[in-house]
């Protein structure tokens, strides 16, 4: 049983934290807010999705920089698989957010800065995948998509950093709405929220690791 071995201890931590997140997230006491009520529990699932996605895209960009600096195909593989996993988390974030919006704001999709930002993020990374698909040569594909990845990620961060601060949003913390971390997020919720964020990020890392290993094996089988 390698679950406690020095190499894999973090996977055990991830599993335990995830089980804790689901059980405690659904059972522990939450503050009763108007409109939100029990749906506030979605905080443990919706918000960490975006944190995980941004984390995976960030690491992917770092591997793209590595690829440009030394031209190794291994870092290209890591970059693409991290983006693939990040896109899955982004889609999950949109779905959880959409369900939450339906029951609190009354619509599946609203014209909100953060929603538009997430849609743009998805478009950019889907374009990244299309770009990769349209290039045949491996070295060339690695380089060009690395350039696009870096360019897109930096612009995205600037965009996400600037725009929501200038416009109103239905999300907490924007346009006069109080942020969760002011007084809504009480100690009970923090007790679940922080482990939830850590465990989802670790899960994203785990999934991308598996994907990277799978693609490595596939390449070996082909050659």
């Amino acid at each position, binding site marked *: 049983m390698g679950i406690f071995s020095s190499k894999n201890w973090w996977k055990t931590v991830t599993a335990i934290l995830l089980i804790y997140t689901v059980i405690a997230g659904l059972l522990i006491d939450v503050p009763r807010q108007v409109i939100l009520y029990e749906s506030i529990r979605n905080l443990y699932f919706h918000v960490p999705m975006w944190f995980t996605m941004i984390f995976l895209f960030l690491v992917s960009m770092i591997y793209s920089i590595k690829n*440009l600096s030394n031209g190794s195909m291994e870092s290209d593989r890591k970059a693409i698989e991290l983006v693939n996993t990040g896109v899955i988390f982004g889609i999950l974030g949109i779905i959880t957010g959409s369900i939450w919006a339906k029951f609190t704001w009354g619509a599946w999709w609203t014209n909100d800065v953060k929603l538009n930002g997430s849609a*743009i993020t998805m*478009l*950019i990374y889907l*374009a990244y995948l*299309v*770009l990769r698909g*349209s*290039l045949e040569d491996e*070295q*060339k594909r690695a*380089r*060009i998509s*690395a*350039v*696009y990845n*870096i*360019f*897109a990620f*930096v*612009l*995205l961060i*600037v*965009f996400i950093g*600037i*725009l929501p601060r*200038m*416009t109103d949003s239905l999300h907490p913390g924007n346009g006069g709405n109080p942020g969760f971390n002011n007084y809504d997020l009480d100690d009970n919720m923090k007790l679940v929220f922080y482990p939830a964020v850590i465990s989802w990020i670790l899960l994203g890392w785990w999934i991308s690791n598996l994907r990277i290993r799978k693609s490595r094996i596939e390449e070996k089988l082909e050659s």
Partner: protein
Amino acid sequence: MGFFYVYPLNTQDLRKCLAIVISLSLKPFQQKQLYWQINGKKNWKRINKDWIQLIPLPPKSNGLKEFTALFLKDIKSEYRKRASLNGIFLYVISTVFVAYLIFNQIEDLNTWLALFWIILIFASTNASIHSFRSESSSEFYYFYGLINPFHLILAKLSFNAILLLIIALFNYFLFSILLENPVENKSLFLLVIVLGSLGLSATLTLVSAIASKTNNNSTLTAILGFPILLPTILTSIKASMLCGLGFGWEDISVYILSLSLLIVVIVALASVLFPYLWRS
């Protein structure tokens, strides 16, 4: 010059042909300048004998000179291919005219701004989509050994900035004539247009450089370009909305500053990343 590529060639011949292609496409003035940059002024008369010698020499260039040469080359080649430039202007004229026929006069500020920016975005995309067309052929290999990619991207960025600026101002002029001008704060709106088209040009330059690596696939350019154009576009649209309503500097300065920040970021990224594209 198509026949050069049809005939089966070995590498020596290819280099010779490339040299001829280049020599035909550049004016003697520029030949002299390029040769000076590489070999010094003394023995530039060898230029007619030893074209092959010219190619593999390492670049020893004066940055400003190289930049100016590349910039002038862009302007001249655009001037020679006037048809494509005229096409862009005609595109702007005809779309604005269609808008005029439909609306006659737009009183609603939102509609006016939406039409203005959409026409501007599409005209800009069409204008700069092929800015690396000449570099994507085999001439690439010739330039590769000759110039510093940093100077090339700077030349392309400035050329595209000027081109798109002209298109944007032309578009504004036509809109003001045909569809009236509902914008209250005109001077600030002009500033927003200038900054917006600078941002558009910088982004589109890098995107068209990427697209030139995929055989100038124009669908791909649109797919790649529009999502990363959105930050610039949304910020400039917000700013121009406020200008249209007649807000002053103190309300719009945030947007102006963030637009300038975006432009700086885009230009910096483009000039850092382009050499890697070049090398592939």
